[in-house]
């Protein structure tokens, strides 16, 4: 799909270009990218809020924009806004009503969700008096009101304190464990890495890299990483002679090796010198490194 926005005076701006994504059922799919890379445009396209300039897409087997799939999805927008004269219970009852929910079933669902996001004790406060974190929590609750099969979350932990962010991450994992699908947009890479099964990196409206988290984070074939501390300086220097890279800080050392044999040689040297080995494992990059590799060059 391609989305080009028509601006004033005939100017145009590309939202996304040749976007081609496939999300498998029952997984957490992460769409990451810098600000303005097209994450929110992608979500809006999938929700039928904006229309593609070219191309098509399907959500849950229905063409994008079709009312049928909206019965089965949930959506949390970035920096959510709601009718501010309502309190949390009224708000969830309103959204539940749009799905035809009502009566005791809806009451039970509202209580369950507000407890889940830690808002039950504050359920009578009007939305206009909410902090950013409270808005985010109630936003997650409204996105789950219809027990959706697929949930779209745009920056779900934005504005939350560490505890709140952890609670929301737990909610997301629990949704996946129930066999549902989560489509997550965020630029918080450290959060996405342990949470997602699949990730696509978006930059300037294009997918520049995608795959499973293991695929993306895997280093070059056969490389190993050794982490240790209190390694004597002369041993560190000797490691530099056959390591691909050696990084040191405080009393810590992190070294990568081209193959298993060199890694074993280094391990032996460190142990003999009295250093403490913390980890020896196949080399794995962080999502941040992958992201910078994928996006950094283009940004420059």
């Amino acid at each position, binding site marked *: 799909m391609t989305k080009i926005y028509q601006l004033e005076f005939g100017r145009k701006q590309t939202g996304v270009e040749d976007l081609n994504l496939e999300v498998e059922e029952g997984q957490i799919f992460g769409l990451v990218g810098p600000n303005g890379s097209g994450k929110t445009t992608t979500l*809006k396209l999938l929700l039928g809020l904006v229309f593609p300039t070219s191309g098509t897409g399907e959500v849950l087997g229905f063409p994008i924009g079709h009312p049928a799939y909206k019965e089965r999805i949930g959506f949390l927008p970035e920096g959510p806004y*709601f009718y501010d004269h309502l309190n949390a219970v009224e708000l969830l009852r*309103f959204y539940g*009503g749009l799905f035809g929910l009502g009566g005791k079933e809806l009451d039970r669902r509202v209580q369950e969700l507000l407890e889940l996001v830690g808002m039950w004790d504050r359920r009578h406060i009007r939305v206009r008096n909410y902090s950013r974190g409270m808005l985010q929590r109630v936003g997650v609750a409204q996105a789950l009101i219809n027990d959706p099969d697929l949930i779209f979350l745009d920056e779900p932990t934005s504005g939350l304190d560490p505890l709140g962010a952890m609670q929301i991450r737990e909610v997301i994992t629990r949704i996946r464990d129930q066999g549902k699908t989560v489509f997550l947009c965020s630029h918080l890479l450290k959060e996405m890495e342990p949470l997602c099964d699949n990730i696509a990196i978006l930059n300037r409206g294009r997918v520049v890299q995608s795959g499973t988290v293991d695929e993306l984070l895997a280093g070059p074939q056969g490389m190993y990483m050794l982490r240790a501390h209190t390694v004597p300086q002369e041993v560190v220097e000797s490691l530099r002679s056959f390591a691909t890279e050696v990084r040191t800080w405080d009393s810590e050392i992190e070294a990568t090796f081209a193959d298993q044999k060199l890694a074993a040689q280094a391990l032996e040297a460190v142990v003999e010198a009295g250093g403490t080995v913390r980890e020896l494992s196949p080399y794995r990059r962080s999502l941040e490194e992958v992201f910078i590799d994928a996006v950094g060059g283009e940004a420059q």
Partner: protein
Amino acid sequence: MKAIYRVARATFFEAWRRRFLNAILVFAVLIIGSSWSLAYLQPGAELTLLIDIGLGAIRFFGMLIAVFLGVRLIADEMEKRTVHTLLAKPVTRTQFLVGKLVGALATVWSNILLMGIAFYIVFALKAPQFRNMDPEKGPVVRMDFMYANIAKAIGLSFLEVGCIVAIAVMASTIFSWILAAIFSFFLYFVGQMADFFRVLAQNPDRVESAVQRTFFAILYAVLPHFEVFDVREAILKDQFLPWLTLGKIVATGVLYIVIATLIAWLAFKGREV
């Protein structure tokens, strides 16, 4: 229908919390409530003034509320981005638009109802004193049809503000809300003079140029005829307002609402939010 009802209900309760609109309503009720004292400014024509001020206030303030509410309905949803969560639910753009319109209609009609009740109370209390104010001529006007006609006039105000709300919503789906407000006010005031354009179009003595007469004829055909909702003259003459005439006015009003809603729908169904 459920989605329309839910959106309309939310719109109604949200609109009643808008202080600016409430202030207009309070001001209107105050003017209507004090219209009997203002009526004394014109000795011998107190009843005329009472009806003029009362019904005029209902129409004018009803129009203000209708325009300011109508033009902000969609704009607020877009600016506050509440429309995103709403349209991501099983709510189509059509249901959203109709729901907003129905909620706005319910709001302006409840406003008119309150103003109408206020006027009816003032009228019921004061009109019996005013009708015999001229000792020389006896009763200035008869009261045979007065109460029923006033009820009919208030009923027509319901329809008139309904048209204005629909026009304001329509304009807001096409223009920015400020432009939409200007457009709505303009259409309302020019629409009051629609019949004047017919006179110009049909009178070669007053307008010599055939091109100009054609222009006025087009204006007459295109503009909404808001003057048809003003039946104060008939009330003051205590004429029976025939049901057929009322039926025609009602049909005109409903037609305006339908046309404006259709244009709004055409503009909004392809709008990106």
